[in-house]
């Protein structure tokens, strides 16, 4: 054992050397590109070089780590030091949504977006206290392994496999989507090609070396993504506040933002009056959309939906014809009209969804802006009442107040439900839990959770700062400036993608008002280098960082799905006598099938990404958490309890989503006003109840199972049974 310890220490030193060398190499690579840029290398080439070089790098690590050993393939040989496992978990964890989407969500929603920041970090407390050390002591390959051993029989294992596949597959689609968006944006390839190009990078890595290759690639990816995130934010912080530590400096910026919010909402100031004029225009537009929607609904109820759709399409066509027939055709307007026609919804439901969105957007912009730091703002019913009717009676005021409070409380309850679902989901997602099988000991597993959260924390506690700094920039420098002198980053992004950045001079005063700006959340991270005035090479770095985040998460998820199928289904249930070689070939073949299937589903562009991600967490929380935690902390929990608990949890969670998420079209009333993304709160409760009731009505588990529980509770017992799988 002493030699194992010293070899572990030597391995750690060696890794440290490799990765320091690697980081140095990467920094030099960025510097060389920066110099080439100054010498005139065009941005498009820089984008290509970045993406190609990083994917080649990941593939290279994958090839170097190829392995034919089962334990290396499934759990990286169980010798990943705590610190490196922490970095790998960080990359595994932080997806495209964290890297690109989070700061944007915070920019758009202020305090209410913090549910994601808290939910995606606080979950690690649960991982540390309830799962990681115990799973490491158990020490097999997958999460269904634990369910199978603890609860006996194939049924709990099978439910575990199904649940692992459902939530990982939902999540991996969101990741591959991110890969497609980044590759297409920075290289000009089409979305579909981007998806498959990124996928090739993922596969070379996990295909050859399984968990071992994925682990060492993820460490490399973490280093890239954290640099890519930090550099632009630090620079922006220096530009705006003069302080290079954004996490401290943004308090000052937040005060600036809050003061500006008050000014913009106050129609007696110059800026506020201009805003008010634009808001009035938005209000008219909202009414216009409302009228159109009413006509649509009437057409549908009277059975003329199809005719209405054709009529609307003809209107768009007529507009295009008119533009084309003009004495001096405006090429730009014609292209937009052609695109409008091409993108015209194929059915009435899609048309309605489009219009509802337009009405909602206009309505949101017709009202005052919400304060960034204010939690759960109400409906503003009281303010509206007093504005429209200054002589309102006390009863009317009280009624409006109650309405506001109800809206605000509902927001608070949903915030709490979402935070809880994200946290418990974090502690239940198999691709994360699996990582704690790879450390050398229980001791290292505990330390590794600390390192995991530490590395994740570095990015997550920066995102709120970035959101505020970007808002400061927009409120102070963009608002009030002239349309004739738009900053370069605004016109660039407007040209690239109108859903990310769009400015229209609605009230024709030649000046920019806040209500005239439409910003897509993803813009914040993508455009920060340009806002901060950094060279294009940093934009390339950010793209590489986003790609690293998406690829690393996709890697971990695909591996989880393939392992569940090859290890739990094939090896444990179908052919327990399969040879090592056969087990690995089956696993690799499945990996390929799952990856192609996931890419195919992604290319269909299903649903809303944020909902997919949230749904994955709710599903994982409902299916796994009760059975896993009670399996360690409650000896009495048994086979029947686990089966009932997992089925009830997963079933209820899926049922609620199906009934309430508008994608499915049922739209049943909400329970306690909780949104479908937080369905896990009902699923989890059902799960715990199911495990407890099911266990109590059937006999206590056998002596062997109780000994297994003792075994996982103590890092080392004399005469310990060995459950480590090889």
């Amino acid at each position, binding site marked *: 054992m002493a030699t194992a310890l010293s070899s572990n220490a030597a391995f750690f030193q060696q890794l440290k050397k490799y990765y320091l060398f690697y980081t140095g190499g990467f920094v030099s690579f960025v510097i060389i590109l920066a110099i080439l840029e100054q010498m005139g290398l065009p941005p498009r080439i820089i984008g290509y070089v970045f993406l190609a070089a990083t994917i080649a790098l990941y593939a290279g690590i994958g090839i170097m780590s190829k392995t034919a050993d089962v334990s290396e393939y499934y759990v990286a040989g169980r010798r990943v030091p705590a610190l490196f496992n922490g970095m790998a978990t960080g990359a595994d964890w932080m997806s495209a949504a964290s890297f690109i989407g989070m700061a944007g969500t915070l920019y758009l929603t202020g305090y209410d977006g913090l549910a994601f*920041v808290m939910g995606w970090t606080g979950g690690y*407390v649960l991982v540390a206290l309830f799962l990681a050390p115990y799973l490491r002591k158990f020490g097999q390959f997958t999460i269904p392994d634990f369910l199978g051993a603890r609860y006996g029989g194939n049924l709990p294992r099978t439910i575990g496999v199904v649940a692992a596949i459902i939530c990982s597959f939902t999540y991996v689609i969101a990741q591959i989507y991110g890969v497609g968006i980044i590759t297409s944006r920075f290289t000009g390839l089409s979305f579909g090609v981007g998806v498959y190009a990124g996928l090739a990078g993922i596969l070379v890595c996990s295909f050859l070396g399984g968990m071992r290759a994925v682990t060492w690639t993820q460490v490399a990816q973490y280093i890239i993504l954290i640099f890519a995130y930090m550099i632009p934010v630090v620079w922006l912080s220096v530009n705006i506040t003069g302080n290079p530590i954004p996490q401290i400096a943004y308090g000052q910026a937040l005060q600036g933002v809050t003061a500006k919010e008050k000014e913009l909402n106050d129609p007696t100031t110059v800026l506020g009056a201009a805003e008010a004029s634009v808001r009035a225009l938005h209000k008219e537009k909202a009414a216009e959309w409302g009228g159109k929607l009413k006509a649509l609904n009437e057409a549908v109820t009277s059975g003329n939906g199809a005719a209405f759709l054709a009529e609307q399409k003809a209107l768009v066509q007529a507009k295009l014809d008119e533009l084309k027939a003009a004495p001096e055709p405006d090429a730009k307007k014609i292209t937009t009209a052609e695109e409008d026609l091409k993108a015209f919804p194929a059915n009435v439901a899609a048309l309605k969804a489009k219009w509802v969105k337009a009405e909602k957007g206009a309505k949101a912009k017709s009202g005052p802006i919400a304060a960034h730091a204010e939690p759960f703002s109400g409906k503003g019913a009281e303010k509206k009442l007093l504005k429209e009717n200054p002589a309102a009676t006390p009863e009317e005021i009280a009624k409006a107040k109650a309405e506001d409070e109800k809206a605000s409380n509902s927001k608070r309850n949903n915030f709490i439900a979402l935070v809880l679902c994200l946290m418990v989901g974090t502690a239940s997602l198999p691709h994360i839990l699996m990582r704690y099988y790879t450390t050398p000991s229980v001791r290292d597993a505990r330390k590794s959770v600390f390192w995991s959260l530490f590395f994740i924390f570095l990015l997550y*506690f920066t995102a709120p700062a970035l959101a505020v700094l970007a808002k400061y920039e927009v409120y102070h420098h963009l608002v009030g400036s002239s349309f004739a002198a738009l900053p370069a980053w605004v016109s660039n992004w407007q040209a690239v993608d109108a859903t990310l950045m769009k400015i229209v001079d609605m009230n024709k005063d030649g000046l920019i008002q806040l209500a005239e700006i439409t910003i897509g959340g993803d813009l914040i991270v993508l455009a920060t280098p340009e806002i901060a005035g950094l060279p294009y090479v940093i934009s390339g770095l950010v793209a590489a960082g986003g790609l690293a985040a998406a690829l690393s998460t996709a890697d971990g998820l695909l591996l989880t799905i393939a392992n569940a199928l090859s290890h739990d289904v094939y090896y444990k249930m179908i052919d327990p006598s399969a040879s090592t070689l056969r087990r690995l070939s089956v696993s690799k073949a499945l990996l390929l099938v799952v990856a192609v299937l996931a890419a195919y589903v992604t290319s269909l562009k299903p649903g809303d990404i944020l909902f997919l991600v949230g749904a994955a967490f709710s599903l994982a929380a409902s299916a796994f958490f009760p059975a896993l935690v009670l399996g360690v902390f409650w000896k009495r929990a048994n086979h029947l309890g686990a089966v009932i608990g997992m089925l009830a949890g997963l079933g209820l969670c899926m049922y609620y989503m199906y009934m309430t998420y508008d994608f499915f079209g049922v739209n049943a009333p909400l329970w306690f006003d909780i949104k479908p993304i937080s369905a896990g709160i009902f699923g989890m409760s059902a799960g715990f109840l199911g495990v407890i009731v099911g266990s109590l009505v059937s006999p206590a588990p056998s002596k062997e199972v109780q000994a297994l529980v003792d075994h996982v509770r103590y890092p080392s017992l004399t005469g310990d049974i060995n459950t480590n799988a090889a």
Partner: protein
Amino acid sequence: MQLTDKHREYWRRNLRLTAILLGIWFVVTFVVIWFARELNDIVIMGFPFAFYMGAQGSLIIYVLVIWYYARRMNQLDLEYGVHEGEN
């Protein structure tokens, strides 16, 4: 294998530590969110308190909670002779 009283005491102390740390987690997350509207009236260094907790404060506490748990449990392992390595 038969557990001794010492083993049971180790597990009790683990449970107690887990419960205390879980309590801290609960307070900095859910109690702060519940009273967020009221707590935001307290402003420290430009940050409304509840906003700061959600954006950074709670995160720092999570990291510290996990750090302390790992440290304390690794000590308890040694104290109760259930650590890995020698046998």
